[in-house]
C-alpha cells in the first residue's frame, strides 16, 4: 500500500475509543469541588501560571469556553510541561486582555493548532524556574534535577521539594533563556493524551451558576429588547407608556441604532425588576416599524431566481482547469444534478444574553462571547467610549457554534445599561434568537460531471449560487477555489452567481464546508453509481496516489491522510462486508476542513412511509499525532456528527416577506435522544501537528446520511432537509 508514504508518516497508529467511552477517565476532582484552595497568596511565575504555598497550581485559560472543552485542554498543555499534579490544578478563566494574551477567540477550531507549542512552552518555562530555585537552594547543578508531578527532585541526594515551597523563590528568578527550554518527549506525557473530565464538570452537574445568563450583580435590572421582524427595519413608534404601566417596569425606550446587523440594530428596550415583568411590558409595546427599502424577499423568490438560472451561465468563473466543455462533449457518460441546502440557525441552547454596568464613564461587561475583543471594540465605538474604558469578562457559553462570534447582544446590553443607569442583564427570548441570527447561508450547486469509458471523472462543473450583494458572496457564503475535487480532476470548472437575500449570514460550525460537503459528496456518489463502482473504492480511486496537494498550512490537502481515514472507516464499519436488509443501507463521505481529515459511514433503515432511522455512524478522523484530551475529543466528534445529522434531517430557516418564519423549537426541530444513533469514533494518528476538533467531523455526516438513504432506497436526496414523503416505498 502506498498509503502514508507521501506524508512521511513514520508512526501511523490508531487508537480506538468506544462510543460514549468513559473507561479509564481521570477525575481530577471530587464532587465537593476542587476549588477549595487555601487562601494564601499565590506566587506568579508567568502570565499563565501561579502557584500557591500549599502546592495548588492556578493555570489561566485564555480563550472563551463554549462547550468545546478548551478550558480543560489548554490548561492541560501548560500543566503537562510544568509537570503539575493535575489533581491540584485549578483553572482560572481570563478576562479579555489582548495585551496579556494576544487574540482570544473560539473559532475555526484554532485553539489547539495555535497554542500547542506556545502553551507547552509556557509550562516548560515555569518548570525551569522551579528547577532553578530548587537547585539554587540545594547548591546543585540544575541539570542534575528533574521533576515528578508537583515537585522537583534531586535523585543523587534523594532530596525533593514541592512546587508550593519553591514558588516564591522561583517567581523572583529571571526568566530563562527561551532556547534553553526543552519540551517533553511525548512518550513521557502524564496529562496530555489521558481522558480528563472538563474542569467545570462538578459545577455543571450540581447546577452552579456558570453561564452568562447566571450572572447576578447587586441592584441589577433585567431587560428585553425587541427588534424588527423584517431585517433592517427601524422603529417608527411604540406605546412606551403602556409598557411603563406594567408592574416592575422601570424603563421603556426606543433605540435608534444603526443599520448594521452585527452592531446595534434599532429596537425597543424594556427594563424591569425581573425578566418576566420586562417581557410583560414588552407585550404592551405595539411597535410600528418603518418600511424598508427594496423588495421584501421570501424563500420562494430565491427559489424562483434559482430556477431561472442556467447551469452554464455563471456570473463569474472562479477556477477553470483544462477544458470542461470539450471534456464533457467527449465523455463516455455525463451526469447532471442540482443540490440545495437551506439557511440554518445556530440555536445554542442558552439564548443570547449579556450583563453590563456603566459607572463613572467605564463600562463593565460579562458576556458569553466567542470573540470578546471585537465586542469590546464594538461597544467602545458605538457608545463613544475609549476601548480601555470597556472591560469584558468572559463567561461560559451555553453553546456557541459560531453565533457568538458576533457581539450584537453585547452592544445592546451595554447601550441599554447606560440608558437605564443601573446594571442590566439583557436576555433574548428564543424567538429573538431564532429570528435575529447570522444564518448559515443557503446554497445551490448545479453540477455536471463527465466520465470516461472506465468510469473515471474527466470533467467536473459546479455552478454555485449563493447569497450576497453585487458580485460579493455574503459573510460565510463563499467557496474556495481549491475546494475538493479541484486539483483532483483534469478538467474542472467552478463558477459563482450571487442571489440577493436580506437574511444576515455568518459562520455556523464548519462554515462553508457544512453545506458544500453535502453537495460535493452527494454528486460524487452519483458519479460512482453511474460508473458502476463501489462508492468507497471510487473515492479512493479519485484520491489516487497523490500526497500533499498545494501548500501545507495554506491550501494544502493531503490525499494520503484522507485515504488513511477512508480505509479506516471502511474497516471499522464493515463496509461492503455487512449484509443489508431491504431498505437498509450504508453511505460514505469524507471532507477536509479546519485542518482535519474525516471519513464517515452512516447506516440507515428507511421505513415504508419514508421515515429515516439512523442506526449507527462510524467516524475515522486524522487530526495529527496527539489527541490532547480523548474524553473531550470523542464528545466533540460525536456532537459534530449528530449536529450534522440533526440539520440534515429536520432543519430549515425560511423567509417570508423579508422576515424569518421559524421562532422556536416547535418549528425548528433539533435532534432528540431517540433519533441519535451511536457514533463510534476512531482517531488515525499521523505524524502531523495536533489540530482542532470543534468542527471538522461535521461536514461528512449529512452526505454520508443521504448516500446511505440512496443505498437503502435508490432515491437520491438532493435537497435538505430530507423529506420523508419522497422516500416512501413504491
Amino acid at each position: 500500500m502506498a498509503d502514508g508514504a507521501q506524508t512521511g508518516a513514520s508512526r501511523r497508529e490508531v487508537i480506538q475509543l468506544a462510543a460514549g467511552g468513559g473507561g479509564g477517565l481521570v477525575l481530577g476532582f471530587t464532587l465537593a469541588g476542587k476549588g477549595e484552595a487555601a487562601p494564601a497568596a499565590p506566587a506568579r511565575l508567568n502570565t499563565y501560571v501561579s502557584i500557591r504555598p500549599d502546592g495548588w497550581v492556578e493555570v489561566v485559560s485564555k480563550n472563551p469556553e463554549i462547550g468545546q472543552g478548551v478550558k480543560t485542554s489548554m490548561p492541560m498543555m501548560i500543566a503537562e510541561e510544568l509537570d503539575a499534579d493535575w489533581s491540584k490544578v485549578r483553572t482560572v478563566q481570563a478576562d479579555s486582555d489582548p495585551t496579556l494574551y494576544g487574540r482570544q477567540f473560539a473559532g475555526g477550531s484554532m485553539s489547539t493548532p495555535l497554542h500547542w507549542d506556545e502553551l507547552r512552552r509556557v509550562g516548560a518555562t515555569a518548570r525551569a524556574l522551579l528547577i532553578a530555585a530548587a537547585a539554587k537552594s540545594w547548591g546543585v547543578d540544575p541539570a542534575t534535577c528533574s521533576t515528578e508531578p508537583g515537585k522537583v527532585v534531586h535523585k543523587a541526594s534523594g532530596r525533593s521539594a514541592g512546587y508550593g515551597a519553591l514558588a516564591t523563590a522561583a517567581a523572583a528568578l529571571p526568566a530563562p533563556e527561551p532556547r534553553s527550554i526543552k519540551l517533553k518527549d511525548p512518550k513521557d506525557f502524564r496529562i496530555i493524551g489521558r481522558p480528563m473530565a472538563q474542569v467545570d464538570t462538578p459545577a455543571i452537574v450540581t447546577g452552579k451558576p456558570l453561564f452568562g445568563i447566571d450572572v447576578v450583580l447587586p441592584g441589577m435590572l433585567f431587560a428585553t429588547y425587541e427588534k424588527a421582524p423584517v431585517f433592517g427595519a427601524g422603529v417608527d413608534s411604540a406605546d412606551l407608556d403602556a409598557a411603563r404601566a406594567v408592574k416592575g417596569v422601570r424603563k421603556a425606550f426606543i433605540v435608534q441604532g444603526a443599520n448594521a446587523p452585527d452592531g446595534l440594530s434599532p429596537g425597543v428596550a424594556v427594563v424591569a425588576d425581573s425578566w418576566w415583568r420586562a417581557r410583560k411590558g414588552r407585550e404592551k409595546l405595539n411597535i410600528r416599524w418603518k418600511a424598508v427599502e427594496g423588495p421584501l424577499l421570501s424563500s420562494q423568490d430565491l427559489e424562483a431566481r434559482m430556477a431561472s438560472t442556467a447551469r452554464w451561465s455563471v456570473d463569474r468563473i472562479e477556477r477553470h482547469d483544462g477544458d470542461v466543455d470539450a471534456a464533457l462533449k467527449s465523455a463516455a457518460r455525463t451526469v447532471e444534478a442540482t443540490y440545495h441546502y437551506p439557511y440554518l440557525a445556530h440555536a445554542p441552547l442558552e439564548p443570547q444574553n449579556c450583563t453590563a454596568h456603566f459607572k463613572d464613564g467605564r463600562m463593565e461587561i460579562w458576556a458569553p462571547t466567542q470573540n470578546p475583543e471585537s465586542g469590546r471594540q464594538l461597544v467602545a465605538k458605538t457608545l463613544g467610549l475609549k476601548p480601555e474604558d470597556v472591560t469584558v469578562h468572559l463567561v461560559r457559553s451555553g453553546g456557541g457554534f459560531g453565533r457568538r462570534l458576533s457581539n450584537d447582544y453585547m452592544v445592546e446590553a451595554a447601550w441599554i445599561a447606560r440608558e437605564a443607569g443601573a446594571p442590566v442583564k439583557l436576555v433574548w427570548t428564543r424567538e429573538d434568537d431564532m429570528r435575529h441570527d447570522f444564518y448559515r447561508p443557503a446554497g445551490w450547486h448545479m453540477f455536471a460531471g463527465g466520465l470516461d469509458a472506465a468510469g473515471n471523472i474527466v470533467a467536473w462543473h459546479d455552478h454555485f449560487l449563493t447569497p450576497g450583494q453585487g458580485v460579493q458572496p455574503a459573510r460565510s457564503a463563499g467557496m474556495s477555489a481549491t475546494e475538493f475535487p479541484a486539483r483532483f480532476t483534469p478538467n474542472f470548472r467552478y463558477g459563482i452567481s450571487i442571489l440577493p437575500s436580506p437574511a444576515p449570514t455568518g459562520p455556523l460550525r464548519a462554515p462553508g464546508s457544512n453545506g458544500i460537503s453535502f453537495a460535493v459528496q452527494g454528486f460524487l456518489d452519483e458519479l460512482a453509481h453511474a460508473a458502476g463502482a463501489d462508492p468507497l473504492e471510487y473515492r479512493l480511486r479519485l484520491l489516487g496516489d497523490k500526497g500533499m496537494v498545494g501548500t501545507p498550512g495554506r491550501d494544502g490537502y493531503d490525499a494520503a491522510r484522507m485515504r488513511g481515514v477512508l480505509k479506516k472507516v471502511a474497516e471499522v464499519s464493515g463496509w461492503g462486508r455487512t449484509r443489508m436488509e431491504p431498505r437498509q443501507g450504508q453511505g460514505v463521505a469524507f471532507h477536509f476542513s479546519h485542518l482535519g481529515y474525516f471519513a464517515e459511514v452512516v447506516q440507515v433503515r428507511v421505513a415504508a412511509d419514508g421515515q429515516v432511522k439512523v442506526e449507527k455512524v462510524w467516524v475515522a478522523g486524522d487530526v495529527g499525532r496527539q489527541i490532547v484530551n480523548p474524553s473531550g475529543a470523542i464528545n466533540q466528534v460525536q456532537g459534530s456528527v449528530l449536529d450534522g445529522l440533526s440539520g440534515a434531517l429536520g432543519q430549515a430557516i425560511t423567509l417570508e416577506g423579508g422576515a424569518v418564519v421559524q421562532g422556536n423549537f416547535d418549528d425548528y426541530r433539533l435532534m432528540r435522544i431517540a433519533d441519535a444513533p451511536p457514533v463510534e469514533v476512531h482517531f488515525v494518528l499521523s505524524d502531523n501537528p495536533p489540530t482542532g476538533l470543534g468542527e471538522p467531523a461535521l461536514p461528512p455526516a449529512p452526505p454520508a446520511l443521504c448516500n446511505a438513504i440512496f443505498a437503502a432506497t435508490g432515491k437520491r436526496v438532493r435537497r435538505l432537509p430530507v423529506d420523508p414523503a419522497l422516500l416512501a416505498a413504491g
Partner: protein
Amino acid sequence: MAYTLSVNGRNRRVDVEPDTPLLWVLRDSLGVLGPKFGCGIGQCGACTVHIDGTPVRSCSLPVEAVGKGKVTTIEGVGDTEVGARVQKAWAELDVAQCGYCQPGQIMSATALLSSNPKPSAEEIDAAMSGNICRCATYNRIRAAVRLASGQTGEA
C-alpha cells in the same frame, strides 16, 4: 401576590404576579439559577425541576399552580440518593459539552430512575425525549443513565 414555596426543603416567600412562570420566580426572585431558560414553551427541558418528585417544565408552570408542592431543583437533587447517583454518573462519564442542558437532563434522569430503577433502552429514550441537548451529548446521556441504574454494557 405573596406565595410561600417549598424549594429544596426550605420555605421561601415571594411576591410576584400569579402567572409568573416558576422558572423566573426561581431564577430572578430566589436566585436559584440551576434551572435554565432555553425555549420558554415546554419544548427543550432545560428548565426541568421536580414537584413532589415529578419532572415539570418550570418555564410553563405558573407559580400559582405550584401550591403546596415541594419543588426540587438541580441544586437540591443531590440530597436524594438517586439524584446523587445520577450526578456522579454524569461526572464520571464527563457527559457535558457546554453543560447548559445538563441540569434539566439530570432532573429527568433522576425522575426516571426513581420510578423505574432499571429502565430499558427504549424507556430511557422515552423518558429523556423532552430534553434537548444542542451539543448532542446523547450517546453519553444514555450511558450515564445506564451507569446510574447499575446496568452496564452498550446503551
